[in-house]
């Protein structure tokens, strides 16, 4: 399918463009009208985020429109950057060097090659079984035993989160859904739109109404109001996007709810890791947002469940 000629995709991209224009206008008005010093800091960060959204939407839209290969390549690059941030923050030892080399330059490319080749059977077990077996073997061969179990677990988890979980998003392109042939790119748009808008809406609701912290020790910025408002409105958005999916409006709402809950959990888990390592963000790659992993933490957790729900019920 050529996404550029697809009427529904056209409406979708038009909607995203409209949303970005509105967001930029609101940001510009807020920058003019906000007086207090802490308020200005929030608005500056908000505007940095909106600017970054223009770039992210353009990048992502261009890759998805360019087709299967470009989409897979984009997610491979995102995995690479996420893994780099994760391992940079994770204490590893000299004995992990070779195992990490495997993770970056062999496991990651091979895994995305399997996504590209539509080889689902091998794709689904390559990392959970074989990469997870090989990492401790390679580390044991290096001969360093200190904190062996902890180091192995950290590297395995880095690979699972940054490569395996993320890759379920482009793997949506390989599903065979009756009556939806060649339209899978729109399923990827649905997932990414709902998961990212859920983050954005939780942030907005939290900033506007947030009073009660939902997980004060793990993520002080998450509030009950942000959680409820953000997820309710993101589920509404997902239901309203049923026409780009193979789902009915009700099914789309259910899918969106699953995506939002997993996305929220992903953000929570990754926050716990950041608190443990004593940092606020995983990196500084995306202005206003932090690193790659800060932006895709929700996607990491939502993509596998969305993939499996769709695969089980609709193929």
């Amino acid at each position, binding site marked *: 399918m050529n996404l550029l000629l697809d009427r529904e995709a056209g409406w979708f991209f038009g909607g995203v463009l409209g949303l970005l224009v509105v967001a930029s206008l609101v940001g510009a008005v807020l920058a003019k009208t906000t007086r207090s010093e802490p308020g200005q800091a929030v608005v500056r960060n908000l505007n940095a985020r909106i600017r970054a959204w223009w770039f992210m939407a353009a990048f992502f839209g261009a890759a998805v429109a360019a087709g299967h290969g470009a989409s897979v390549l984009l997610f491979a690059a995102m995995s*690479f950057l996420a893994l*780099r*941030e994760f*391992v*940079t923050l994770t204490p*590893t030892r*000299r004995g992990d*060097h*070779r195992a*990490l*080399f495997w993770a*970056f330059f062999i496991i990651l490319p091979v895994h995305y090659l399997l996504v590209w080749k539509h080889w689902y059977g091998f794709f689904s077990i390559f990392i959970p079984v074989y990469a997870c077996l090989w990492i401790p073997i390679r580390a044991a061969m290096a001969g360093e035993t200190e904190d062996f179990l902890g180091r192995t677990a950290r590297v395995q988890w880095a690979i699972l989160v940054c490569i395996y979980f993320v890759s379920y998003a482009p793997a949506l392109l390989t599903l065979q859904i009756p009556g939806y042939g060649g339209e899978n790119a729109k399923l990827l748009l649905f997932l990414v739109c709902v998961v990212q808008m859920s983050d954005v809406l939780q942030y907005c609701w939290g900033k506007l109404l947030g009073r009660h912290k939902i997980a004060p020790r793990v993520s002080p910025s998450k509030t009950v109001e942000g959680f409820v408002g953000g997820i309710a409105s993101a589920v509404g958005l997902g239901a309203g996007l049923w026409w780009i999916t193979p789902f009915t409006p009700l099914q789309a709402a259910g899918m969106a709810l699953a995506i939002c809950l997993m996305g929220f959990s992903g953000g929570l888990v990754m926050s716990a890791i950041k608190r443990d390592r004593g940092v606020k963000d995983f*990196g500084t*790659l995306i202005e206003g947002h932090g690193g790659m992993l800060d932006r895709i933490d929700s996607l990491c957790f939502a993509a596998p469940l969305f993939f499996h729900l769709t695969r089980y019920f609709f193929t």
Partner: protein
Amino acid sequence: MIASLLTSLVRLFTGARGRWPEGLFVTPRPRVYFANHTSNLDFVVLWSVLPPTVRQRTRAAAARDYWTGGPVRRWLASSVFNVVLIERKQVTRANNPIRDLGAVLEWGDSIILFPEGGRFSEPEPMPFKSGLFHLAQEHPNADLVPVWIDNLNRVLPKGELLAIPLICSVTFGTPLLRLDGETKDAFADRARAAVIALRGH
């Protein structure tokens, strides 16, 4: 051109960023950048994060025995990185490294020096050798700038051939103050402490 290609590649691979106090690079005086040394990539990364105009006039001190060992290394050393080859093993009056490095400073160029005299994988730098002291004594007009290179020991540890991509940072400090009558050892300790103080910034 190859140099700028390589430096861009190194920055892309390691995501390396240089951080320095504002106005560090406005002075026309020659500099001695001295840093901790854990990896063969150290000087390449330090060199890569310098502003291009500064980089063109900055040369790293590199071990002659290593960098002349084979045609590729020799070409990289002379044509790409334009390093100052210094003798580590058999230092005589004729090939005294301090004299060769001093000539670069006299010419107005800056140098990169790793005063530990080798690569170590300890968390803290080794005690500094006396080269920096002698250089500082003979060239009072040169600024001595401490530099901390973070995480490169994990990118390419000593003894490994293949690098892994981790995010690195290079932190520059303000030039070391000159103290009259300071002994060699006191100076070495102070210079080393200035490098360590930049860690975690």
